[in-house]
């Protein structure tokens, strides 16, 4: 075994495995180049092309899409609104998913398997179907509004506005959050919690000083995933926003499919990519801080 490792580390051999690694990486690199990098470059190129009225794409290059976007109060509002709504959804998803993930992490045996399947099962149904479910539940004649009216509570509008979008997306993103949290809970050992209690910490102190720091990597991962999914989702905001909620993803859809302004759609898409890049940078910063701490 040790002899094997020694030959493995010989320079000549190592170069050999390097070639194998390159050969093995080549297919995925090619797929990525053709399926991801090339389209992205195309998109970036499209974002500096001239948009003609009626959906044409001009031959000339222009910065007008970018300056128009960043100099227009409507789009600034739209970007801010997108970020605020996505962050709200991420936070709410975290709040409702964290206890479930913690319970699942502690469960054992068949019970754990059963619960895990239960958590994942919504992913077997498409987001469209689940959104229509929410429409039925939250509509003016739906059970939620009826129950609130019966109890004498004046029901606010729950659908065709931002509230509807937040409710729908929070539920739809929960399985992703729970799975990400569980993946990041590896360091949480029940014996550490027990030790803290034995040493006299009250439950809240155990949670704040032991459980929370140990599960922070999971929280960071779950939040990154849900934020990215929330910013890019457009089916649920389209169906539940009632045309009042302007978000980046729905705007890209409208510009690309309805207005046919592909250059503007491309500009917005590149902007979303920049936001994702920023989220990734924040995530890796947070992870580095957590590892140091």
């Amino acid at each position, binding site marked *: 075994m040790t002899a094997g490792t020694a030959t493995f580390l010989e320079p000549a051999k190592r170069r050999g495995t390097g070639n194998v690694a390159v050969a093995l990486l080549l297919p995925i690199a090619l797929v990525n180049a053709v399926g991801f990098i090339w*389209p992205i470059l195309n998109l970036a190129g499209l974002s500096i092309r001239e948009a*003609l*009225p*009626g*959906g*044409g*794409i001009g031959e000339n290059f222009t910065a007008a899409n970018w300056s128009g976007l960043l100099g227009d109060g*409507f789009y600034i509002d739209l970007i801010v609104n997108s970020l605020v709504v996505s962050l709200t959804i991420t936070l709410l998803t975290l709040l409702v998913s964290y206890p479930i993930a913690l319970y699942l992490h502690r469960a054992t045996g068949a019970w754990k398997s059963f619960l895990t399947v239960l958590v994942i099962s919504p992913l077997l149904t498409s987001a469209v179907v689940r959104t229509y479910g929410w429409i039925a539940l939250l*509509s*003016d*004649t739906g059970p939620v509004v009826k129950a609130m009216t019966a109890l004498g509570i004046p029901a606010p509008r729950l659908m*065709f*506005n931002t509230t509807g979008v937040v409710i729908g997306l929070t539920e739809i993103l929960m399985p992703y959050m729970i799975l990400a949290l569980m993946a990041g809970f590896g360091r949480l050992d029940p014996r550490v919690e027990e030790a803290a209690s034995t040493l006299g910490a009250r439950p809240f102190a155990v949670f704040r000083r032991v459980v929370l720091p140990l599960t922070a990597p999971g929280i960071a991962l779950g939040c990154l995933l849900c934020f990215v999914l929330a910013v890019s989702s457009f089916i649920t905001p*389209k*169906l539940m*926003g*009632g*045309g*009042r909620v*302007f978000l980046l993803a729905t705007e890209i859809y*409208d510009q*690309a*499919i*309805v*207005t*046919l302004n592909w250059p503007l759609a491309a500009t917005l898409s590149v902007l979303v990519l920049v936001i994702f890049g920023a989220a990734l940078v924040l995530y890796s910063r947070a992870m580095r801080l957590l590892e140091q701490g």
Partner: protein
Amino acid sequence: MLARLSIAVSILALGAATGAAAETVTITAYSGIFQDHYTKAVVEPFMKKNPDIKVEFYGLPNSAQMLGTLRAQKDSPQIDVAILDISVAKAGADEGLFEKVDESVSANVKDLYPNAFAEGVAGVAVTFDNLVLIYNTDQIKKAPTSWNALWDQNYAGKLVIPAVPDIQGTTLTIIANRLAGGGDYKENVDAGIEKLGELAPGVQTWEPKPDVYTPIANGQAAIGIGWNARAQIYSGTSGGKMAVVLPEEGSGFQINTINLVKNAPAGDAAKKFIDYALSPEAQAAFTAEMFYAPTNSKAQVSGEALQRTAAGQMDKMIDIDWLAVAKIRDSITEKWRRQVIPLSR
């Protein structure tokens, strides 16, 4: 979008491979009920008349996706004929995707109504549709006769309006501008925008899904606007729950054009199909089938179809110049988003 495109390409490639014996004409037009009814009223009779030509119908949900598909195939077209909205057809013609349709393609071109042609559009109109009021018959017992029913406070919260950039919203803007006494819509639509602002607080949704007809047919909403042809069909399938009115003030047309794709692989067979699609016979058949008004003035339209389309009331229609609208569409969209929709929050 890309996935769909590649599916499209492979389906088309398959079609080309298997249809090598007989000539195949591939047409693209709206999927769904348009495809069903167009196939029955026009495509099948055409194939019966021309047994050596096979027509493949490649349905797409909207004109924009048709344009996208045609753009992607510009260097080696797989589609021969495209039926799409006039303003999108103009964009396609500007990009050199289409061949001119004139009397050398079809002798029927000379019999079309004058508004079937537009400067810079390579194709010609193949269907006329118009905006209508639609309402739920359980919630509204007496049929409304005027567009003003949309402003009726009794229906506040029960109103569904497909907002701009959907062209139903654009058409409503032009109608509202006329109701409010605004002048030429090409100059400005401010009066119409202001009037729409009064309607905004009562709107339940600006983006009815899957379409505007469903919430009205199932009672989630009471009144709204839609396109006549689809409204007539869905009114029939709703079992009387949804009814359609062409208001007394008239309405505006939506125009679908038929376009010959440049370097179309089917060649003369494609021209033959366009000729048939514009013939009085095919025009009358499709009007009877789906209540689009014919574009051929020689089409013999029966009594019921005359009642249920704008064909009998051409004089009441507002002449909307969609190519002029294309130029002001962005500013109309901006006004809706800044001055109309925010009032409904």
